[in-house]
């Protein structure tokens, strides 16, 4: 598998495998999202489609609870600055 000239050479190239696949992205600000990855670049800017974003709202207090807010978007450009991790998302 790795014999071709332009194979995977560094971890960053593994993102390439996930093109057109559904990925799970964890972002800063207690956010996560899943979407179909269409494009990426060196900054980790991502273009996702069919996205569902999940925001965790932490209520500090006696009993720390976590509320979750979701929203869906058709097409999204994510700035690479805020991306923590990208992973496969097998439904």
């Amino acid at each position, binding site marked *: *598998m*790795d*014999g*071709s000239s*332009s*194979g*995977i*050479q*560094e*971890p960053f190239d593994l993102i*390439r*495998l*996930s*093109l*057109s*696949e*559904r990925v799970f992205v964890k972002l800063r600000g207690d956010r996560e999202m899943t979407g179909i990855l269409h494009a990426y670049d060196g900054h980790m800017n991502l273009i996702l489609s069919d996205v*569902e974003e999940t925001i965790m709202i932490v209520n500090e207090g006696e009993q720390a609870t976590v509320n979750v807010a979701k929203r869906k978007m058709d097409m999204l450009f994510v700035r690479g600055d805020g991306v923590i991790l990208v992973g*496969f998302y*097998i*439904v």
Partner: protein
Amino acid sequence: MSFFGFEERTLERGKDRRSEQDEDLAVYTWGEENYDGLGDALQEDHDDLNDETFGAVGELGKDFDFSNQALPDRKNITRSANAIVEDRPPQSSTPLTLESIWDDKSPFSLRLNGSNRTQLPRGESPAISSQHRQQSGIRTLQEIEAEMRVSADQSRQEALLQQRQQQYYLEQQRLQQQQQKQREEEELLLRQEEEREFQRQRLLYQQEQAQQLHLQRFQQQQQLLQQREHQHRRTPPPRMLPVSQSPRFMEHQQRQILLLQHQQEQQQLLRLQQLQEQLRVEELERQLRSQHISSVTPDRQPSGPTLADMEALQHQQLRQQSQSPATRSGPHRPAPLEDSLPYLPQSIQLQQRLLSEMAQAEFLREMQGLSQADQEALRVEAMRKILEAEKMEEKRRRKAAKIAHMSRYNDLMTQSDKDFITRIQVSQLVSQDPYADDFYAQVYGAIVRSRMGLSADDERVLKFGASGGVALGAPTKGGNRRPNAMQRMQQQVERIVSNARKREEEKGLHSLHSLQGALGKTSGRSYKAAPRQLLQVDSSSAPSSSPTLSHAQPHAHISKADSISKSSSEAAADAARIGRETLDNGETLVRMEPLTQREILVTLENMYDLVLNVEQLRRDQPHPEDGEEVLEQWSQDFDKLVDQMWIQLKVMLPLATSTPHPFISLLSAAKGKKILPRVTRHFDQQRMNTLLTLLIACFSQLDIISHAALLDTLEDTPERADVERQTQAFLSSVLQSILPIIVKGNLRLVCGLVGLLMHGQDIVAIAKSRPGLALLTLFLTRVEVIKEGEVDENPTPEDFAQWQLMFDHLFQLLTPEFPLLFPSTRMAEHLPRDQPHINIPGIDSLDQPVWQFLAALALQASSMQHQILVSSLREKVLDNVLSAKKGWVVDEEERSTKLANVDLFLHALGLDSSQITM
């Protein structure tokens, strides 16, 4: 206060206040409210010389005398100022001044000498007469007229005089205002530049004076015409006042001269404001003004030589003016032209000459008592000529405006600057391989062009139009100038491209020269942007290439575990391949685990690279005329790539290699489904048949088939959405690519495929999925077409028999499941038990393919099979017809869809929905 040097006079006064008298120190008592004696120390005499020191101001009133000159710097100005000051009082008493007009001194002198602002009551006849002599012959006539006037009746003159006085008064007031403004301007100019060559100035003054006189004459004549048009008070016909006509004409001319002077002054002001930076113009203007002023001085101090000089100069000027071409606009325009005054347009000169001739002729005829008609004709002619001249001036004015408009950016940016910037911008757009650098734009352009009617005549890969906003390839309607610009740009681009190519070649030669024999690669493009190593040794190449690196990990970044697993699977694949090759029979089986997700994705990415390379190669296909060798080479490269693709697809792996087959695993990703049409485009028929066979044989292993049940659920889960998406992708890409094969397939092929479909696979499950159903329908219709005999090949009876067997088998297998073939039926099972009749939106369109399939089935079914069909689908049909007829539908569309569906099936049976009676 002894230290002041004064007597202590306060001792007595403040003695009682002083407690310490023996103190030698002076006690400062500032700030005390009582008397401290300082006021006595003030010296307040010796004020007698104050007026001398500070200047006698005279009476201080609230009326500021704007006309008074405060700074006496230039003698001329002072003198002129004095003259003007002196003029003021005499002008206020208009009748006196006007009276003097009608003295022996010619009135013209007054007007001519005060051409800008000065009007001297003291007319110097010698000066004036000399000036007159300088002008055209009409001046002589004027002199004659003056003599005539003297001899004429005094009373009539007085009567006319009063009218003229009023006019002159008004005009003088206007003149005064203008003169004031101009005087201030004058003073400013003169103060700015103190010492110039006076002699030269005087010469120039005289020249300009003569020119101004010409202008004045012309303007006066024009105004005369205007007055004749607009003013009611018209010149009485000459016959009425034969004697006084000439003085009246003279008066008109005087007025015109005045107005001409006004206009001249206004023009000078405008020029001042506009061309202040230009010294030359300033000089001229100053000269003009000082000329006017100085022109007064010779009059006031009649100096013979000066006047003689002026005469001579004016004669010269006349000659010069007749020679100078008329290139400038007339004096009327306030356009920012530099030297309008010194150069008179020829037409103006012509006009003046004509008018002067006309006036001459008039006077002569006056004296000779010619008829009125001739005089009128002359006047009309003159007017016509003046109008013509005005038109020509108008044209010239427009042309000058256009030139000014075109050159309004002069010195800001020349054409070469603009070209330079254009070249820079274009060079950024240029690229060696536009399809690689700007793929999407190129393809988009191609699509749009093909949609717009195939107007892609010249396939200019560098599509400026796309970036510039011009319609892609379509002829530009209003772009008459655009093609030229585009051509220019294209030329520039070609030049840039060829330069870049040459540079690259040079670099190549150069690199060969310097780095010959080195094992590594150099950067292709110029790397000024980011400095790079001259030679980049590829350390990550295949392990076998470098003996030193082979023992090390395949790559530093990838963990050993991964690499090992990869290498093992790779080894397995290699073994399988080698085994196949050696045995020359692809039956040796190496049982493998199904491809992992990672492997699938890696393979697919490699596939994508190969596909892109193939497509690139396809685009670079050399023309047949390039030569056999090139074509041969290209073909070899192409075939090699295609072979690689074929291998990557893993189609040749034995069927039982894994479950699912690797090829099927590859198709489980949406990426894989989408890339299939692009890959199969380059495969030949044989390979395609193999591919199709494999696909059909392992059809049930497809993910969409195994997950098809999810589509029957009603809730919208992500999984369901995913399956839906995958199904769509399959239908649009994979089926599209195998469609052409099936459509052209012969009966035997179809037979075999249908047999494969049923052999060892759950045909019911396949039939319950949309792709499977579509496939079956495809097969059936193809056979129908073959049966109808519209194909080239002639199938043998054995083939038909074989097909019949297949068909019956299929029918048999599907019969019990007919109702469940319908999505509506399947979905209804998922409805909540208490609401069995919820209308699922869009269900009828989902059902339609099923009805189509059943119709296709019915077409080939025997009568027995028909009966079976009818009996099993009876419920369904009735259900639809009932709901349609009884109106249990949402809208008209749904009703029509229901009926259409049913009719599809019934028509195949030879029935119709209308036959069903309720």
